[in-house]
């Protein structure tokens, strides 16, 4: 995959667009964007992004592969679906944003410390471990994501809330030790590994 993370594409030629179409969920829609800008204008977070959706689509067509895949813009999407509802061309923009983020992650071009990426990864690791989400551990790893000191501080801040949740049986401290899970964990892991293999095999390399 290292060759894919550093592929060179011709500007304004279809190379990168075709790569996106092949590898990104709903990527075949990118060509249909007519650059009206309605999505960027509708996105509640658009003004804070380096590249709002409309621009991302043009960048793809302009062959700005590296800029797109290393951008943190699509990681900022909150899935509010405003853009999808409004796009006159019917592009599933939200899905494309997530698809792009995922593809950038697979190629490991996505920014390392992008918080959404980190949280998604945390969540994935948490849920795939036992086949069930371990909320206690997920919460704790979130508190301690920036180190021990800030973690303790963060945990103390939410002490009352945590105790209340335990009292009402919304949280089980015993989960800390392993926690509940599916019956056939190794089967699950084998299945996920297979899925990953299939996905990777499907990845299409850029033309050159």
């Amino acid at each position, binding site marked *: 995959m290292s060759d894919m993370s550093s592929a060179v594409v*011709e*500007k*304004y*030629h*279809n190379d990168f*667009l*075709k790569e996106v179409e092949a590898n990104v969920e709903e990527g075949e829609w990118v*060509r*249909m964007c*007519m*650059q009206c800008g309605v999505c960027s204008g509708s996105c509640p977070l658009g003004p804070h992004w380096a590249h709002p959706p*409309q*621009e991302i689509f*043009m*960048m793809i*067509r*302009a062959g*700005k592969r590296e800029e797109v895949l290393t951008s943190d813009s699509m990681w900022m999407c909150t899935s509010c679906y405003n853009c999808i509802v409004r796009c006159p*061309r019917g592009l599933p923009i939200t899905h494309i944003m997530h698809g792009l983020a995922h593809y950038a992650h697979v190629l490991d071009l996505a920014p390392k410390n992008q918080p959404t990426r980190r949280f998604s990864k945390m969540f994935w690791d948490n849920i795939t471990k036992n086949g069930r989400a371990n909320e206690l551990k997920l919460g704790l790893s979130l508190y301690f994501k920036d180190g021990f000191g800030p973690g303790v501080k963060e945990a103390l801040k939410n002490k009352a809330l945590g105790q209340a949740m335990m009292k009402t049986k919304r949280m089980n401290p015993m989960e800390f030790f392993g926690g509940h899970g599916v019956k056939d964990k190794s089967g699950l892991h084998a299945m996920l590994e297979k899925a990953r293999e299939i996905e990777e095999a499907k990845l299409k390399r850029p033309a050159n």
Partner: protein
Amino acid sequence: MADEKLPVEKKIGAYICKGCGLGERLEGAQLSMIAEREAKANVVREHDFLCSEDGVKMIQDDIDNEGVNRIAICACSRRAKTDAFNFEGVAIARGNLREGVIWARPDTDEARETTEEMAADYVRMAVWEVKFMTPPSSNPEAKCTPDILVVGGGVSGLTAALEAARAGYPVTVVEKSGHLGGHVADSWKRIPDRAPYTDPVDTGLDELIAACEAHDKITIHLNAKLTKTAGAPGQFQADISVESGPTVTASFGAIVQASGYDDYDANQLPDLGYGKSPDVVTQQELEALARAADGGAIKRPSDGKEVKSVAFVQCAGQRSEKEGQLPYCSGHCCMTSIKQAMYFKDQNPDIDTNILYRDLRTPGSGGEDFYRSGQDKEVTFTKACVDGVEAAGDGLHVKFKDLILDEDSEEVVDLVVLAVGQVPNSGVDIDAVAIEEEEEEGEAGEEGASPANEVHVSVESILNLDYRQGPDLPQLVYGFPDSHFICFPYETRRTGIYASGPVRRPMDIVSAREDATGAALKAIQAVENAAKGRAAHPRSGDLSYPSFRKEGCTQCKRCTVECPFGAINEDEERYPVFNESRCRRCGTCMGACPVRVISFDNYSVDSVGQALKNIDIPDEFEEKPRILVLACENDAYPALDMAGMNKIEYSAFARIIPVRCLGSVNLIWITDALNSGYDGVILMGCQKGENYQCHFVRGSEIAHQRMSKVDDTLQSLSLEPERVATYEIAITDIQRAPQLINDMAETIEKIGMSPFKF
């Protein structure tokens, strides 16, 4: 002067309607008395419901049994009930008591007196007007050839020919080149005009040519030109000269000018690489490459290499303010580039195609679908401003600013296609020639004084019209010889000659076919109207035509110069010669004539002059001013009618007379009005100038020019200049038009009554 034209017996019938609330608001008996005693109508009748079958029959009976030949209908506006009040063989005037009086005035006791006075005046005006009208009959000399001449054998010309021929009219096509089909003959495919609008389709030219050649009503002359076109609708005489062949003269009823366009000269665009690299081509040149490829891979001109990447530069030398470039949009070229990008994509989807546009314009019902289809085929669309094209190494470097990404960029491609615009083949710009001539006359002797940078292109005339105003169609804008793109397409300022296809406005094949069908229909109308001696648009069906009293004419030439339609030629003695089938009946000539010798049967200096002079003018001390409003019948008069319908009140002192066009207003009417004691005069015409709305193109403009001289008249009478005002009114000005009348009433209150009341 009109008297001599009147038949011995003129019998006037005045009919007063009491329906629509008129009976309740107005004193019918009083109005009848005025019609009879004052205005001297021979027969006067009231009716409760004049437009009813019974009312109409009453009038018809008088026409049949009493010999009434001039009727004054004092009821609703002349724009209402035209079907009911449509009597053959008589002159008709209308007194507008409904929209113009009771609907425009409040129903109150205080208002009653002035409202009644208003109605009485409209009765007087109608009777006096009709007294000076003659029942119009078409010119007995009207004759007509049904043949239609089509100038140009491209898609528009051939389509017009086929449509007219299929409708039963013999058609002659004159084509200057040796083959039919024009630019389309060199084209590969065209933009689709049917759902699903996804792919380029066959041009259909071969079938069109075959159909024309096979049609027994169509005669085609190749390598031929018009060396002279004389006459008028119904009886044009055209000299058709065939290269190294004979010149034949033939008669035609109407002409369709489909002389097409030339591509803008791409050599003027060296920045875009044209002329520097053979791989920079125009859209038309790409058509040729596509034809040569015949469905296979398109090869670039320089070395025959198969094109793997192509960039389309939109608006090349168009929509530009740069000197020597086209200021307008040719309308079709965005779609044409999409079509051409598909030539590549359909053949090989891996070819990179990039359309660099400033604004992508895809007009027409299928435009958006076709654009979408282009995107679906992975044509890249880039909103960009192209700075230049340079040849370097094996490719062309297209440098541009990406307007979405807001950065300078560059793409390397095998081929660049320039979307250059269409330049109409409209012949000689007669207005420019006229101005030049004037200047030459002005600077006689100073030869060679014209500035060096001025380009004098000698353009060959297309029609070689034997018209006093010049050999070709007057141009509207940018060289396109239309007269109003939106309100009356195809109508040029030469009646019976219709422009069609890209010579009228830039367009593609599909629009050209539609256009040609429209123009063919117009030509057929012109033939039929000419045969019956009737006017064409916008006074369609009017039988009257201008005639002039030769003895009075001073050969001043004003009418021949001012006629917006070039209807008037000059004879050897320099007297005007009216070609009534060229005439649109605007009356501009009548307004122009300083000795007032031009008139129509149903519209003359007298018919209006007598109406305006014969109202009742109360003396100065009654404090009842009179305001004359001369309102254009196309826009201002309907606006005032609609004001009445909407119960928008205006001053009871206004007396409104519809005129055919402000251009028909003769200054004598203003002088007469002021001399008779009117306190103010308002002229309401259509918008003039570049975005004119005047139905006769130049009438309103000419009137405004004439009125700028009215100050002299006012001065000689020692009257204030505020007493005469000229306005441009749109049909939608239903609030403003009444307001202007009220403003004049206020002005008069300020400056006082006119001293000319006797």
